C-alpha cells in the first residue's frame, strides 16, 4: 500500500516556519543545505522519503494521496504540486518523493522527474516584505513552464496577491522578474526604502505594472485587495490542463509503466479541461 502518508517527511527550513504535517509516518526538519544525509537515512528506513521545500504547509488530505507502487519501484523521484497562498496558482518543485536508491550515490537532492498533477499543500513565503519580494521575484524569473506557458498566465502570476500579507511586495518582485531589468538584490534595494512608508507600497504598484506592460507586453495589472480576492476565488481547484499533459509527456519519456499511467491521466484530464485536444486514439475512432 503506497499512500503518501506511509513515508517520512523531511521538511527543509526551520520548524517555526510552518504547521506540523498530519498523517505521515514521521516528520523531520533540517536546513536545506544539510538535507542529503538525513534524507538518505530516512529513505533507507522506509524505502522513500518525501522532501518538502521551505514555506510549504502540507494539506491534511495529502497523506491520503496514493502513489502507484510500480512507479515507486522504478527509482524515479516523483513530484507534487502546491497552491501558492499569495497568487492562488499551482506551483511545482515543492514536494518530492525520493526513493532510497536515488539517494545512494547522489551528491545533492535529486529533482522530480515526473510531477503528479495533484496538490499536496500550500506555498507561503510571504511572512516578511523581503521574503515576499524574493519569492515573487523567483516565481516569475524561473523559466519553468508553470508561469511561462502563456502571457496571461504570467500576468496572473505577477498580478494576483495584494489581498494577503505582503502580497504587494510579492507582486513588485514578480514584476521586476518579468521585466528582467535588475537583479534580485538591485530590485530589492530600489524598493527597500518603502519599508519606512508602508502606505506608499500599493501606490508604486500601478506605475510598476504599467512599466512592465510597456517593457514586455505582458498584461499585468495592479489589483486592489478586493479585486485580487475575487479573481483568486475564480481559480479552479484543479491544476491546469498543462500540468496533466506534461505529466503524460514526462511519463512517456520514462518507460511503458509510466506511459500507461500518463495516458490514463491525460484521458481523465479531458473531463475537466475543455481546451485540451482530443487524444489521438479518440480522434481516430473506428466506424
Amino acid at each position, binding site marked *: *500500500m503506497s*499512500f503518501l502518508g506511509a513515508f517520512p517527511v523531511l521538511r527543509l527550513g526551520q520548524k517555526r516556519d510552518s504547521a506540523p504535517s498530519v498523517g505521515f509516518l514521521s516528520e523531520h526538519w533540517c536546513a536545506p543545505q544539510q538535507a542529503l544525509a538525513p534524507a538518505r537515512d530516512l529513505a533507507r528506513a522506509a524505502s522513500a522519503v518525501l522532501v518538502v521545500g521551505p514555506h510549504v504547509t502540507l494539506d491534511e*488530505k495529502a*497523506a*491520503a494521496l*496514493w502513489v*502507484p*507502487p*510500480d*512507479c515507486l519501484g522504478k527509482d524515479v523521484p516523483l513530484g507534487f504540486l502546491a497552491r501558492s497562498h499569495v497568487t492562488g496558482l499551482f506551483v511545482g518543485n515543492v514536494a518530492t518523493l525520493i526513493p532510497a536508491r536515488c539517494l545512494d550515490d547522489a551528491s545533492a537532492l535529486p529533482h522530480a522527474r515526473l510531477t503528479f498533477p*495533484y496538490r499536496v499543500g500550500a506555498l507561503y513565503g510571504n511572512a516578511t516584505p523581503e521574503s515576499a519580494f524574493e519569492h515573487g521575484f523567483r516565481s516569475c524569473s524561473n523559466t519553468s513552464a508553470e508561469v511561462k506557458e*502563456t502571457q*496571461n*498566465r504570467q*500576468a*496572473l502570476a505577477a*498580478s494576483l496577491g495584494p489581498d494577503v500579507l505582503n502580497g504587494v511586495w510579492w507582486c513588485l518582485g514578480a514584476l521586476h522578474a518579468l521585466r528582467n531589468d535588475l537583479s534580485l538584490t538591485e530590485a530589492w534595494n530600489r524598493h527597500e526604502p518603502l519599508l519606512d512608508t508602508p502606505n506608499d507600497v500599493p501606490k508604486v504598484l500601478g506605475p510598476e505594472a504599467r512599466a512592465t506592460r510597456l517593457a514586455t507586453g505582458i*498584461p*499585468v*495589472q495592479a*489589483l*486592489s485587495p*478586493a*479585486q485580487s*480576492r*475575487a*479573481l483568486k*476565488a*475564480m*481559480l*479552479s*481547484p*484543479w491544476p*491546469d490542463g498543462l500540468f496533466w499533459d506534461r505529466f503524460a509527456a514526462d511519463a512517456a519519456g520514462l518507460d*511503458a*509503466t*509510466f506511459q*500507461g*499511467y500518463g*495516458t*490514463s*491521466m491525460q*484521458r*481523465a484530464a*479531458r*473531463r*475537466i*479541461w*475543455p*481546451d*485540451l485536444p*482530443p487524444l489521438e*486514439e*479518440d*480522434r481516430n*475512432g*473506428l*466506424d
Partner: protein
Amino acid sequence: MARRAAQPTASVALSDFPVVYMSYDEPWADEAWEELLVLRPDAKRVHGVKGLNACHVAAAQAADTPRFLTVDADTRLLPSVIDVRIPKAYLSPNFRLDWQSRNVVNGVVSGNGSLKLWSQGLARGMRSHEAAADDTVSLDADIGSIKPGSSRIVLMPGCHSETDPARTPFHAFRAGFRETSFLAWLLRDMEMRSGSNTAELQQILTIWCTLGTQARLGDWVLYGARLGLWAEQTWQDWDIRVTHDYDWFQRFWEETIRSRIGRGGSFCPVSGMDWNADRLRAEVVALGTALSDVLDIPMADLPPEASRMMTEARGFPAMRALENLDALGRAFQKGRGTSIDIATAEQLFSDAGLLLRPSGLSNLARLHQLELVDAPDQSYAEMLLRRAMALGCAFAPHHLAMHMRKAGKTADEEEILRLIDLSAERGFAPSDADT
C-alpha cells in the same frame, strides 16, 4: 499500477448528425444562420417558436431523424467540431449528449449555449419550462424525469462552440439575469441538502458577477447577473419561473430596466437602443456593494484590462464536469437506459478515480469484487477500496469489510467491525438484509 481500463474504441463522427439551428427574437439570428451554413450547409432551422420546451419539439420535427444536434442562436460552432467523434456506446436513445460552450463575455465553460445531441424520444418526451406542471419549478431541461433512472444528460469532453448573448443590451441583460438567478436558486436548493458541495456554484457566481467589462455590452451582462442574484436573494414574493416567461421579461425590461438606466450617448447598432453608460456602470457598482453586504460570494469591480487578463487566461474548467460521472458509469454497469457495457463503466470509474473522486475508486473496486471485468483482481479491489476510504468515501469501508469477510479473513473481525462502524459514521449503514 499502470492498470488501464479497456478502451471502448468504436465511434462515429458528430458531423454525421443533422444540425438544427434554433432562434427566437435575436436580431442577429439571420447573420448567425448564414455563418452556420458555411460549416454545415445541410443545417435546418426553427425560428420564433415560443417556449423553450416547444422549440425543442419543433427542432425534433424539423430534423425528422432519430438524432439531431441543436445549436442556439447565440452560439457559434468552432471549426474543431468537425473532428468530434462519439463512442458508439454513448448513442443511447435515452442519453442527451452535451458539449459545453465557452461564454465570450466571461470565459465560463458551461451548459449555457452548449451543443446538444438529442434523440427524438427525449426531445418529444421532455416536459420542462412552459410545459412543466404548474406546481413545479422547471428552469432547465429536465431530461432525468422523462424516463426516471434511464434518461440522462451525458457531458462530453471538449468545447467546440462559443456563446455570445451580449449582442444587444436586452439580450445581454437577460442572459446575465437568467443565469445567476438560476444558479442562486440551485445554490439554495443544494444548501438545503446537507453534504452538497456548493463551492463550484459560488465560484461560477463570482465569475458571472465580476468578469465582462472588457466585452462589448459586458456591463449589461454584469448588471443582469448582479440583479438576478439580488432578486433571488432579496425580492419578496419572487417566483423564479417568470425568468422563462418571454412576455414578463419584455415588460420587466421596458418598464423597469430601461427607465432606470435612461437614455444617453451609448448606442447599440443591432437593436438601435441608446443608454446612459455612466448610469449603467453606477448601477453595476451599487449592486455589487449591496450584494457584498448580504452574501459571502467574493466579487469586485474590474477595469477592462484586468477582466480581459482573467478571461483570456482560460483557467476555468468545464462546469460541473464530474457531477454525473459515477452515475453514468453505473448506468453502463447495470444497463440503465443503455446496454450493459463494462468496459465503458470501467473507463468512467477509472477517470473519476484519477480525478480523486472516492466514489469512482469504490465503484471500480466493485467491478472487480463482483468479477464483472475481464480479469478480476481481488487484491486490486482491496487497494482501491482502501484508497476510496482514505479519501472519505462512505461506502468503501463497508465494502472493504464485506470483502474481507468473503475472503475468510476472520482473524481480522475486529477491523471488519471497525470498518462497518466507519461507514455508519459516514452515513452508510445498510441493514443486514441489504448486505
